[in-house]
């Protein structure tokens, strides 16, 4: 997809990558590892408006169900239909083939509410301690 160092992260372990003017969204390694084998992904509707940090998708694993929150506000442009039949793509490739949705962001200033890869790494270290 892109350079992972340019990804931005939420405290709920979603990532977003700004590919030109489109925001590609997925869940981070920490989340996929905690969930275990993903068995179902509830994708948002194309054209739906989502709000930053509001639930817009859900992931189920053999262990638990977990809500996914939008890292940015905007309109859903595309969803990863491959996840319907192959939800395990989230386990195998959470930063690339396991992307969940593409969003047309409505307010780029919202980037300021997200963590850089470096900040997120420190955040994870804080969780472990």
């Amino acid at each position, binding site marked *: 997809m892109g350079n992972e160092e340019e990804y931005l992260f939420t405290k709920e372990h979603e990532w977003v990558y700004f590919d030109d003017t489109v925001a590609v969204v997925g869940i981070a390694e920490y989340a996929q590892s905690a969930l*275990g084998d993903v068995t179902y992904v509830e994708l948002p509707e194309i054209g739906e408006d989502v709000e930053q940090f509001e639930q817009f998708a859900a992931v189920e694993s053999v262990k638990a169900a977990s809500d996914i929150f939008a890292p940015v506000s905007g309109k859903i442009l595309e969803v990863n239909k491959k996840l319907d039949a192959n939800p395990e793509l989230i386990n195998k490739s959470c930063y690339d083939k396991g992307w969940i949705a593409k969003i047309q962001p409505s307010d780029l200033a919202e980037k300021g509410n997200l963590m850089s890869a470096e900040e997120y790494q420190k955040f994870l270290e804080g969780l472990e301690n």
Partner: protein
Amino acid sequence: MTPADVLRKTPLYEDHLSLKAKMVSFGGWSMPVQYTSILDEYGQCRKATALFDICHMGEFIVEGDLALSSLQKIFTANLDNLAVHRSRYGLMLNSKGGVIDDLIIFRLAEQKYFLVVNAANIEKDFLHIQQMIGAKVRCENISDRTGKLDLQGPLARDVLAKLCPGIVKLKYFQSDTFSLLGESCLVSRTGYTGELGYEIFYPWSKTKILWQKILENDKVKPAGLGARDILRIEMAYSLYGHEINEDISPLEAGLDAFVNFEKDFIGRDVLLKQKEKGQMRRMVYFISADRRSPRQGNRLFSLDKKDIGEVTSGTFSPALQKGIGIGRVLADTDAALDAVFFGSDQNFASGQICQKPFYHHGTLKK
């Protein structure tokens, strides 16, 4: 939940940590829920052989001249016609007909029985049995010195025969004492997975050696409680605390087959009344329309959105590639009910009612 520092540890605790298992609290014990991937470990059991650490479960010996008649009183299945070296699944009930525990009773000798009970129920089961069987029958709790490994899967016989050729003679629900790595132990052809398999009752302090020896065979991999739960739900086997508890009767739990009314047992009169007047609740089994999984505690609704009960167990079924669920509904729910919604009243999905089990290709009787 029990705090982590007081959780009990099986003799394989260090082995689980070195295998990088994720540990969880289960029935007061720290147990491995998965080593690598729950779905991979599930597949290992359905296609090859998986090894489970089941040392947490409880074992009792009941022995004496009146052992048979005493156990008959506290067990719903009939033991009268149980031959030595055979075992039987059944329930122990309270006076209200509720399930104290489900267990397997093995007949070791004419008046000597071996009972296998759930980990979380060991103390209360032991108290109940002691109170009910009378002073002349000896009941001993040997859980602390009895380890238990379950070797399950279509290749289990070949794997175990390499260490103990005698086990090939065992038929389903048959057991005997064998010498395995120089230790005398009870091996039973039973399990909780729907596959051909064995439960090995081994000296606690030596179980680590047996575990490591079995895992040297490259056809075997360790599997955790996560895989075990999927395997048992696909077979629609009950789990204490889910399908059964002290307020649920075996009839309500769909376990009629394990209740014998031809003999007397504690709770029998209540069950007879339920048979006559009708019980309060009944079980349903359903398959999700898609990959979405029901979860324990989800509500169940009829298609006209009436709340009819709850999900007692649910999971994703790798065999069906769909969510599957077991639920308890009010007994007056339409007998022709053929579909349900599961979830909450805000967020729900649909499922098709089916017969149990969900999985029909198991090798348990092969």
